[in-house]
């Protein structure tokens, strides 16, 4: 199977500090890849590099056969990469429904959107589906700024669903959630699986076990190990660098 995303020797140098340092990884089409690593390992920075938020100082990112290294954010997004941020990022002054409308990105140009009414029927079914999946049907006319933390995270997942990208990057989707909320989140992510390729950063190992196929471990900007849950949990270098510090179950 062909790799949808290929990262080769990627590097970023923040005034002498290499937050990502010669990192390589390939993600297959339809795969769900978990990325773990201690705080400051460079996971978020890696996502910033893929999505064009941070410009790399070396290496290459190939997506669907195109070199997308250091391209503009919106162009990378248009190629089909969607993202959920570590700090939940929704539009607080818009209603839940409007958030989902904005995330429906089949038409992106000003001219075409002038012809689109703010509440187009055609999109309604997709919005209903996203609302249902993120359990926000009741709240659909509320301002997003009034949602609870967990609901905000789900709304952002709903937005990713509306955007319908080929590759989804999820940065700690269960951070700050209760056990019950976490369970619900893994349900949502499992339903995204298959249709989309997914990279998810996660600390919670119970959660990882419930969704995971292959894990990549990052340490100090480099790839430390890659393999199944069992392989990783028994890998001495990982235990030395990371699990040994007691970090993997909590952190």
């Amino acid at each position, binding site marked *: 199977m062909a790799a949808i995303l290929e990262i080769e020797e990627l590097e970023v140098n923040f005034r002498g500090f290499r937050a990502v340092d010669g990192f390589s990884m390939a993600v297959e089409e339809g795969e769900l890849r978990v990325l773990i690593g201690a705080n400051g390992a460079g996971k978020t920075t890696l996502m910033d590099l893929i999505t064009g938020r941070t410009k790399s100082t070396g290496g290459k990112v190939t997506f669907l056969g195109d070199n997308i290294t250091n391209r503009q954010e919106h162009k990378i997004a248009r190629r089909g990469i969607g993202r959920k941020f570590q700090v939940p990022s929704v539009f607080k002054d818009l209603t839940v429904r409007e958030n989902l*409308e904005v995330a429906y990105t089949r038409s992106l140009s000003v001219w075409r959107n002038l012809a689109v009414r703010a509440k187009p029927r055609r999109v309604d079914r997709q919005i209903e589906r996203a609302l249902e999946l993120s359990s926000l049907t009741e709240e659909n006319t509320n301002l997003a700024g009034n949602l609870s933390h967990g609901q905000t995270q789900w709304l952002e997942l709903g937005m990713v669903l509306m955007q319908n990208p080929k590759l989804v990057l999820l940065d700690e989707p269960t951070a700050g959630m209760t056990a019950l909320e976490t369970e619900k989140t893994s349900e949502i992510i499992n339903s995204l699986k298959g249709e989309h390729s997914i990279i998810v950063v996660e600390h919670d190992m119970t959660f990882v076990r419930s969704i995971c196929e292959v894990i990549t471990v990052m340490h100090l900007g480099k790839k430390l190990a890659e393999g199944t849950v069992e392989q990783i949990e028994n890998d001495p270098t990982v235990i030395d660098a990371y699990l040994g510090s007691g970090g993997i179950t909590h952190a």
Partner: protein
Amino acid sequence: MQLLTRTNLQLAAYGLFIVVVMLLPLFMDVFWLNRISKYLVFGMLGIAISMSWGYAGILNLGQGLFFGFGAYMLAMSLKLASPTSLAQGSDEPVPDFMLWTSEPGAPIDLCCINQGSFLWIPFKEQWFGVAMGLVMPTLIALVLGYAMFRARIAGVYVAILTLALCLLVRLLVIDAQPLINGFNGLTDLGWFTVGGLEFDPYLVETYYLIAIITCLVLIGARWLVNTKVGVVLQAIRDNEERVRYLGYDVAVYKVFFFCISAAIAGLAGMLYVIAAEFASPTFMNIGFSISMVVWAAVGGRWSLLGACLGAILLNVVEATVSETETLVEAWQLIIGAIFLFVVLVMPRGLAGFIQQGADWGLDWLHQRVKERRIR
């Protein structure tokens, strides 16, 4: 069908405004109508500010630049249409002030009475002036907006840049004595004429010209913010970065609204010239541009109608106050106090305040209806 909804109440408010504006001539003499038509023009500026500041989050402190450009473009045409311009000893119209500063022996003709005077030639056609009054502000906004928003300049830097540019152009205008009569501006203008109808500012027709255009702008703006472009723009105001990762080209969206806002300001400038019969560098004073922002803030910058009404009401109050000698001096103080009061007590402006009241009313009503049903 639920009739009493938020949207329907808003639409009713728009409808009421339009009806009142259209019926006003039944209750007022032409003198007051002329005043009100100027305030409607300011209302249009309120709409322009609401679009750029309220919806797009672009605080433009140099809106006077676009207003002034619109005003000068039409005023140039109307200057050439003035009887005095035809009485300067030539078959072709020449602005009187050009003769005051011309070299001895210079031909009395727009081609070459002074170095820049040829620029006036196409303005002999009134509709060229009208077209330029829309095109120039839009073009400047396009170039300025593109430069700023591509470079991701935002927030207070936009305010500073626009303010500085407006002041710079004001200086250039004042300096251009031979070309556009510098500090004194363009006065003694002819009337705007459409198919034989001369729009004397003290005619009811002139009031209607301005009133209808203002209402059309209001309706058009409302339509625009209700398209998906409007929603995306509000999302940009809320969290610009996030919008980018959805694939939207944020700069293009901002430039688009910046240009629309500039075009509205240019249109307002032209209508002001028709109602007030002059164009002057004072249109580009900082004070004026800041006033516009105050009007919108008081009326409610997140509401097009609110910002429009804020401009009109504050000007009506100002006009009433200035009838009383002692209050004239205090006007600046009064407006400052109103501004502070609104910003502190109702941060969403008058419109936001009323909207909140209406929302409570609606909630209460719906609650009541539910209780009835249960019983």
